[in-house]
C-alpha cells in the first residue's frame, strides 16, 4: 500500500491553503459575528470641535438629548480654540498620536479631504448610511476619492447684506454693485463706503476673493478640480481689481466680527458675511436705531460654501456608537433645531421646505438659493497650502500693488501637491 508520491504535494498544498483561510477567518470575521452589529459600544464618545457658534449653545443641547436617549453611550464635546488654525492643528496632532481618545472630529469642510487622504478618519459605508435628504453641495464636501467620509453637520454660504434704506433692491450683478458703491462715494458728506468683506490675512480673505473672482466670471478651479488660472487670468485679475475698488477705504483688516461692526455703524453700504449674522445684526448699537438691512444671495450666485462635517476617527474604539451619534446630529430633527434655535444653516432639504420655518424666517429662501449655487473650494489634502499661496497673491495685489505673479498657476499646482516653495524675501 505505497502511497503514490504525487499525492503528497497535493496534501501539503491543500493543508497550506486551509491553514491560510482559517487563520484569516479567525482574525477577521469571528469577532465581528459574535457581537451584535446593532449594539453601540459603551463609554464616553468624545467629539473634538471648534467653538460652538450657534445661538444659545444648541450643539451642546443636542448632545444632552443624545445622552438622555443613550445613557450607556454618553457623548461630550471637547471644545478647542475659536481660532480655526489652532483647532486644525490640535485635531491633526491628536489624530496622528494614534491614541484613539477622540471618536468624532467636527471638521471644517476644507479639512475633510486632508483627514481622509491621511487616513485619520473612517469612510462611511454608504449602504448602511442614508444620504438622501441632504443638500447636494454640503454632501459633496463629505466625499473624497469616491468614498463618503463624513456627514454634513451645518453648512454656510456667503450672503450679501445691503442697506435697505439706501437701496430699493439688491444689485443683480457685480457691475451694478460696483456702480452703487461708486455712486454712494460720490455723494458728498457721506461716509457710507464700500463692501465690507473679510479682508484680513486669513481664510476669510480667500473666500471673499474667490467670490469676487466668480463675480467677474472667472474661477480658479473648474468643476473637475483642475486649476484653470492660466486660462482665466483676465477674469481673475478683473475680480481682484473689483474687490480692491469696492473695499472700504484703506482696505482695513476686517474679519467677520469687525465687518459686522462696520456695517452696523452705518459706514458700509454692503457687507459680505455668513448667514448666522442675520440673527445678531438687529441688536444694533445701543442708543442708535438698528441699521436697516436686507439680505440677498451674492450677485450671480457667487457665494462660496462653508460649513462643518462630522467624521468618525480612524482609531476610535467606539466606531458604531460614533457613527450613530453622527447620524443623530445630522438627522432631520437635529438639523431643524440647529437652524431654528441656533441660527446655523441646516444641511437637510426638509428644513427648507417646512412652511412654519419659512414663515418665521423669511430669509431662508435666500439662504437656500445661495447654497444651491454656491461654489466649493478645492477638496484637496493640501488645501491649506493652496489657500496660503493664493492669499499671498491676493494680498500682494490688494495692499502692495504687486501684479498677479506670472507663474501663479504653477505656484498653485505645487501648493496643491503640498510643496513648500523656498521663501523669497519681499
Amino acid at each position, binding site marked *: 500500500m505505497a502511497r503514490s508520491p504525487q499525492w*503528497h504535494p497535493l496534501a501539503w498544498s491543500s493543508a497550506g491553503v486551509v491553514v491560510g483561510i482559517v487563520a*484569516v477567518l479567525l482574525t*477577521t470575521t469571528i469577532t465581528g459575528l459574535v457581537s451584535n452589529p446593532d449594539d453601540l459600544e459603551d463609554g464616553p464618545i468624545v467629539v473634538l470641535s471648534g467653538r460652538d457658534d450657534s445661538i444659545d449653545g444648541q450643539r451642546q443641547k443636542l448632545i444632552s438629548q443624545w445622552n438622555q436617549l443613550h445613557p450607556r453611550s454618553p457623548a461630550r464635546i471637547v471644545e478647542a480654540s475659536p481660532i480655526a488654525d489652532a483647532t486644525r*492643528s490640535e485635531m491633526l496632532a491628536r489624530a496622528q498620536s*494614534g491614541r484613539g481618545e477622540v471618536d468624532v472630529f467636527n471638521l471644517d469642510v476644507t479639512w475633510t479631504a486632508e483627514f481622509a487622504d491621511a487616513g485619520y478618519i473612517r469612510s462611511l459605508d454608504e449602504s448602511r448610511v442614508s444620504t438622501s435628504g441632504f443638500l447636494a453641495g454640503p454632501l459633496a464636501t463629505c466625499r473624497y476619492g469616491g468614498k463618503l467620509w463624513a456627514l454634513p453637520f451645518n453648512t454656510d454660504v456667503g450672503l450679501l447684506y445691503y442697506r435697505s434704506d439706501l437701496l430699493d433692491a439688491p444689485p443683480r450683478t457685480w457691475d451694478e454693485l460696483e456702480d452703487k458703491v461708486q455712486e454712494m462715494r460720490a455723494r458728498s458728506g457721506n461716509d457710507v463706503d464700500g463692501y465690507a468683506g473679510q479682508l484680513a490675512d486669513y481664510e476669510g480673505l480667500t473666500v471673499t476673493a474667490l467670490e469676487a473672482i466668480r463675480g467677474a466670471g472667472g474661477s480658479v478651479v473648474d468643476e473637475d478640480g483642475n486649476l484653470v488660472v492660466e486660462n482665466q487670468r483676465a477674469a481673475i485679475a478683473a475680480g481682484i481689481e473689483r474687490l480692491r475698488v469696492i473695499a472700504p477705504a484703506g482696505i482695513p483688516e476686517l474679519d467677520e466680527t469687525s465687518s*459686522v461692526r462696520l456695517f452696523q455703524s452705518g459706514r458700509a453700504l454692503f457687507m459680505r458675511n455668513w448667514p448666522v449674522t442675520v440673527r445678531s445684526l438687529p441688536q444694533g448699537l445701543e442708543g442708535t436705531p438698528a441699521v436697516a438691512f436686507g439680505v440677498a444671495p451674492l450677485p450671480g450666485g457667487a457665494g462660496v460654501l462653508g460649513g462643518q462635517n462630522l467624521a468618525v476617527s480612524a482609531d476610535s474604539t467606539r466606531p458604531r456608537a460614533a457613527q450613530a451619534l453622527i447620524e443623530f446630529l445630522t438627522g432631520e430633527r437635529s438639523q431643524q433645531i440647529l437652524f431654528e434655535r441656533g441660527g446655523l444653516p441646516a444641511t437637510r432639504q426638509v428644513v427648507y421646505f417646512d412652511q412654519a420655518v419659512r414663515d418665521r424666517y423669511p430669509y431662508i429662501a435666500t439662504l437656500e438659493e445661495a447654497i444651491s449655487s454656491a461654489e466649493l473650494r478645492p477638496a484637496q489634502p493640501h488645501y491649506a497650502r493652496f489657500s496660503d499661496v493664493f492669499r499671498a497673491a491676493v494680498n500682494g495685489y490688494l495692499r502692495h500693488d504687486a501684479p498677479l505673479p506670472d507663474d501663479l498657476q504653477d505656484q498653485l499646482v505645487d501648493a496643491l501637491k503640498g510643496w*513648500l516653495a523656498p521663501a523669497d524675501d519681499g
Partner: protein
Amino acid sequence: MSETGDGSPPGGPLPRPTAPWRAVGFVLAVLGIVLVAITPNPPETAQHWIQIVAGASLTAFLTTYAGWHEVARLRLQGRPTLLLRWLQRRRVAVGVAVGLAVALALGVPPAWDLARGVSMGIAGCAPVTQLRMVADPETVTTARGLADSYEQWTATDNHHCPTVDVYVYSGAGDEIRERVAKGTGWLDESTALRDIGPQPDVWLAATSHELADLPQPTAQGSAIAEVTPVAVSPVVLAVPDAVAAREKYEHSRWADLYRRLTDEDVDVVRADPDSTQLGLLATALLYGVPGQDGAASPQQLPPAEVEHRIAAALDRGGFPLTDTPGLLCRHRTLGAQAAVIASEQQIVRFNLGEPLGSSCLSGTDRPGRLTALYPTDTRALDHQFVRLAWSDPPQEQAAARFGAWLRSDPGREAIVGTGLRPVGPYTVGPTLTTVGIDPGAVPATEPIPPGQWGRTAAAHDVAQRRGRVLFALDTSGSMATEAPEGRRADFAVAAVLAALGGMGPGDEFGLWFFPDAPGTGHVEAVPLGSSGPDRLAAARQALAGVRPAGNTPLFRTMTDGAAALGPADPGRVDAVVVLTDGEDTSSGLTADAVSASLAGSGVRLVVVTIGEIRCSDPGLVAITTATAGECRDADLSNLSTVLRTAIAGLWGGR
C-alpha cells in the same frame, strides 16, 4: 512502512523541486506576504477579502511545501558541520544570493528615493507630522521665524515636501508655567484647549529663570522631557544717537552707566519687572549684582532711587507701563530721545524697522536708530528649547529633531536671522551687524545667583511707587450680548475681580460703571480709596449686581475719571482702566477733545477692548498715546489674562 530511520516519509525520498520552481515559489511567497501587508484591516471590500485570503494562503502553502522539504532533506541529525558542507556545495548559488542582497541594499535606497520623489511629484506630499509650539508674546515672533525656517529646511532635501508642520501660538508665561508645573498639561481640563490654545509639544522659553521652579526633566512625573539652551541675547542699554555721540561708555558696569546717564539728564526707561522676564533681569542688574570681587559698585544707587528715576523717565516720555516692545513702539511713534533697556534682539528689530509687539503691528520704512551699550557685567536672556513629555511618539520625535536642528549649522543660521546669538559657533549675518549692534561684545558668563532673583523682586516691591487705579466698566446694553461662550458682562466682571486681586497693600482703587440711568454719565460703585478687604468685598458685591443696559458714554467717563483722580503725584501712578465693548454713543465729546484735555494731566488711560471696538480705532490710539497709556484687544476667552497683564505695571508691590 519504510524502515529507513532518517525521518523521511515512506515511499522513498521526496521529489525535490527544481531550481526554476524554487525561484517561482520564492516570488509567490513574497507576493503573498505583500498582499496581506497592504490590505487594510479589517477588510472592507470583496477585493480586500480576496487579497488577504489569497496572500495568506499562498505564503502558508509555499512555506509548508517548499520549506519543509528542504528541512526534511537536510537530515542534520544534530551535526552542524553538515550545514556548512551543504552551503559549500551550493557556493555559487549562495554567492549570487549574497551579491544580489548587497546590490539591492546599496542600490534600492537611491532608487527608492527617486521613486518616492517621482511619486510625490505626481501624487503630492505625504501627510506631515503636526507639531505645536508655544511662546510668550515677546518671544512668539522669534518662534514663528524659527519654525518657518525649519519647515523650509525639511523641504529642501525631500523633493519640496516638508516633513513637519509647526503651529506656533502665543500664551502668557505664567499660564504656561502653571500648566507645566501641574504635569498633566491639557489632558484633564478641556478649557485649557479653548482658553489657552493647542497642547504644546515645544515651548520656547525666554530665559532659564522661567524654568527655575519647574520639575527637572529627570524628576518623576515631570512634564518636561528635555531642556536645551539654543540662543542668547544680551541685555543692553540702547541710547539715541545724540547720547551715543557724547562720550565713550565702554568698560562701565550697569550701576556706573545708569548713574552717569541719569545724572546727565538722559531718561532711561525699562519694562515692568512683574510681568516681563527682561524687566526682571534688567532690574536685577540695575540694583546691582555682586561683582566678581563680591563688592558692590561705589556708584550703586539704592533701589528706591532707581525706581524713582525710572518712573520719572516713563512719565516724562509718555511711555506705557507694559513690556519692552510697548516701550520701543512708543519710542518709534513719538520719535523719543530716551534710552531704553532692552535685549539686543529687540534693538536689532527696532533698527531694522520691523513690527514691535501688538501695538506696532506693521513695520516702518524709516526706522529710528538706537545704539546698544554693553555694560561689562551685563547678562543675557538665554532662550531655552523645552520639549514637553506629554507628547505622543510622532510629535515627540518631530520635536526632538527640531531641537537637534536648532543646534546644527542651518539652525544656528536661522537663529542669527532672527537677531539672536546662537549657542555654539556661528557666523555673524546681516542682522547682527546692523548699525548700533556690537556682536563682539560678550556678556558676563556667571549666572545671576539664584537668591538674587527673589531679593530683586522683593526690593522692587518695596521701592516701586504705588498705584491709584480707577476701573471703569462698560455696562451698556451691548454687554448683555450672548456670545457662544457666555454673556460678555459675566466675563468682564470676572476679569475685573481677577485684576483687583493683583493689588498691593499700598495701592488704591475705585470702581465705576457706565452708563448711569440717564445714560450720559457713570455710577460710582466703589469710591476711590484703599485696597482693604472690606472695600474689596464691596467691589465684589457691586460687580455681582451688574445689569447691562443703556448707552456708552465712553469719553465722558474717561474725562470724569481722570478728573476724579485728582492732581498728579509723581510718587504715584494714576490711571483710569476702561473695559469696553463699543464705541462712544452718548458723551457728546470727540476723541480728539478727550486726548487734548487729558494729555499732560499725568493720568494714564489704559483701555481693554472686547466686542465691536478694536485698538486700531484712531480715537483710542490718540487718547492712549497722548496719556502714556496702552490699549489691548481681547477676546472673551483671554480677557482676564489681557487685563491682568495690561495693568501689571500700575500696581505697587505686595
